[in-house]
């Protein structure tokens, strides 16, 4: 099956994929849901920024400052366009998705028309990353609100059978993942958002695994907030983003106070900058924003549709191959329908840590553990999974190397 994406050409863009590990074996990198590798264009953008344009932004009058400011704001324009944000001013840079989610969960505890209080309810799901669980637990503790959640079905989908009991007139916020980092599940966020809006709740989507690998449109999703991170989408670490609906962002109080987020500061009180700067306190990750902009250019140059098609194709191939491994159980949807490119599995009688360690010894990089989504493991009565995750540079040969590696795992632990 052809997907219109030339994987071999793509691989040449990623210097690290030429690396050899452990006795000169080719690196088989199947851990992109953890962090993606970076194309040359992003590395060059980072180095180029520091070599030629480095300055602080929005606060100096010299040529470097003008260039750095333009490049930083250019990064914002690119990311805002990528997710079809109605306005670039609604796109706030953060250090990562965790900070983006904490921004929302913290400001909702404070005085605003959206303030959460005793008797209110916050709804999440059992398949969230810890970064979309803990901030809401903290919000509930701080405000006296109650945290509730959707469960997971045996085949790794959200159990929406009790949606009308969970989302009620008491619900103030619904926060859920668009694509699960552990199960791979693609959730029907638009339908859930529509139901949440009927009761007047805000909707937050964690799109960390979705933005890198498929077209994401905040307007079509109908959410109020969308959080994502740069390093999983070919960008640098240290930068992520929060898109929020203008009407809501304008009424929320600032999250962090500091430089550049103000309009006027007097000893008796301060007023705040307009969006998005109200939420960007202190010197921001400037080079990282430039690098993220380059990553967006890179991804859109290939095309998110083509990337999504490749992801579907390689995930489908991987599921087929893994189904043929005796003792292997997929944890999550075991068909390539409505899922992303992260595949978790268990191997009978062998702990995932050991699976990953042996795979590493043959050059195959995967992640083992609870993937910062421990409740998912609890749900399936397991301690951990091994997770292989794919991206635009993943080949069928690499999936084959994974399957061969699993034979080696079994040999060691026979």
């Amino acid at each position, binding site marked *: 099956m052809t997907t219109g994406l030339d994987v071999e050409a793509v691989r040449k863009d990623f210097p690290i994929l030429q690396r050899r590990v*452990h006795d000169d074996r080719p690196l088989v990198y199947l851990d992109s849901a953890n962090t993606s590798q970076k194309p040359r264009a992003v590395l060059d953008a980072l180095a180029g920024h520091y070599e030629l344009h480095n300055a602080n932004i929005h606060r100096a009058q010299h040529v470097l400052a003008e260039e750095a400011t333009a490049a930083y704001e250019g990064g914002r324009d690119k990311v805002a366009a990528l997710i079809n944000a109605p306005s670039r001013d609604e796109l706030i840079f953060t250090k990562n998705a965790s900070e983006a989610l904490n921004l929302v969960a913290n400001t909702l505890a404070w005085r605003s028309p959206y303030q959460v209080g005793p008797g209110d309810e916050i709804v999440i799901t059992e398949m969230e990353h810890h970064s979309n669980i803990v901030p809401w637990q903290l919000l509930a503790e701080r405000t006296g609100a109650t945290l509730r959640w959707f469960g997971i079905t045996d085949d790794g989908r959200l159990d929406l059978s009790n949606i009308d009991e969970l989302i009620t007139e008491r619900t103030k916020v619904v926060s859920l993942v668009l694509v699960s980092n552990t199960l791979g599940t693609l959730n029907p966020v638009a339908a859930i958002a529509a139901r949440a809006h009927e009761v007047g709740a805000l909707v937050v989507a964690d799109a960390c695994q979705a933005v890198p690998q498929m077209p994401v449109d905040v307007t079509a999703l109908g959410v109020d907030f969308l959080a994502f991170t740069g390093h999983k989408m070919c960008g640098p670490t240290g930068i992520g983003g929060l898109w929020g609906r203008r009407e809501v962002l304008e009424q929320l109080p600032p999250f962090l106070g500091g430089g550049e987020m103000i309009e006027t500061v007097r000893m008796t009180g301060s007023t705040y900058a307009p969006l998005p700067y109200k939420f960007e306190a202190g010197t921001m990750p400037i080079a990282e924003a430039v690098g993220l902009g380059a990553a967006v250019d890179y991804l859109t140059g290939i095309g998110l549709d083509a990337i999504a098609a490749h992801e579907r194709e390689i995930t489908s191939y991987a599921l087929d191959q893994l189904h043929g491994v005796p003792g292997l159980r997929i944890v999550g949807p075991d068909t390539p329908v409505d899922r992303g490119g992260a595949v978790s599995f268990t191997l009978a009688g062998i*702990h*995932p*840590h*050991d699976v990953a*360690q*042996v795979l590493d*010894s043959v050059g195959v990089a995967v992640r*083992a*553990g*609870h993937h910062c989504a*421990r409740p998912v*493991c609890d749900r399936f009565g397991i*301690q*951990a999974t091994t997770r292989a995750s794919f991206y635009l540079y993943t080949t069928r040969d690499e999936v084959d190397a994974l399957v061969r590696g699993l034979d080696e795992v079994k040999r*060691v*632990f026979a």
Partner: protein
Amino acid sequence: MRLDSLYQEIILDHYKHPHGRGLRDPYDAEVHHVNPTCGDEVTLRVRVADGIVEDVSYDGAGCSISQASTSVLTDLVIGKPVADAVAVQEEFLRLMQSKGAVEPDEEVLEDAVAFAGVSKYPSRVKCALLGWMAWKEATLRATAPAGQDRQVAADERANA
């Protein structure tokens, strides 16, 4: 990296046929330790009588390294005076923190020398130490002067 430096035969044997496994009575202290990065966990009980580690029993789930090292631990400390057992624990900790740079003392560590290779894998050191750190805490509690610590342990048992 040579995989067989990590997965020594002794380790795989203890993993497949663990010693001392299963929670037993009587005991003086019980602790529950987890490895937050991977979710491995162990519940471990210690019985101390007349200054001797009379029993160590445990239940848990985890990788080969964590399970085998807890199995080896029970072999090494049961029957020893507490002070000698603590010395073994300290030597094992020193080995695990050595990044492969120290020669293990086989006189003290016996089967546990097999874990020397683990110290070269920083992500697995915590696995090897899971049961040992649990034992250390349980033993501290079991040997604390009658009073607060013992009371805490007793309360936890009552609430278990």
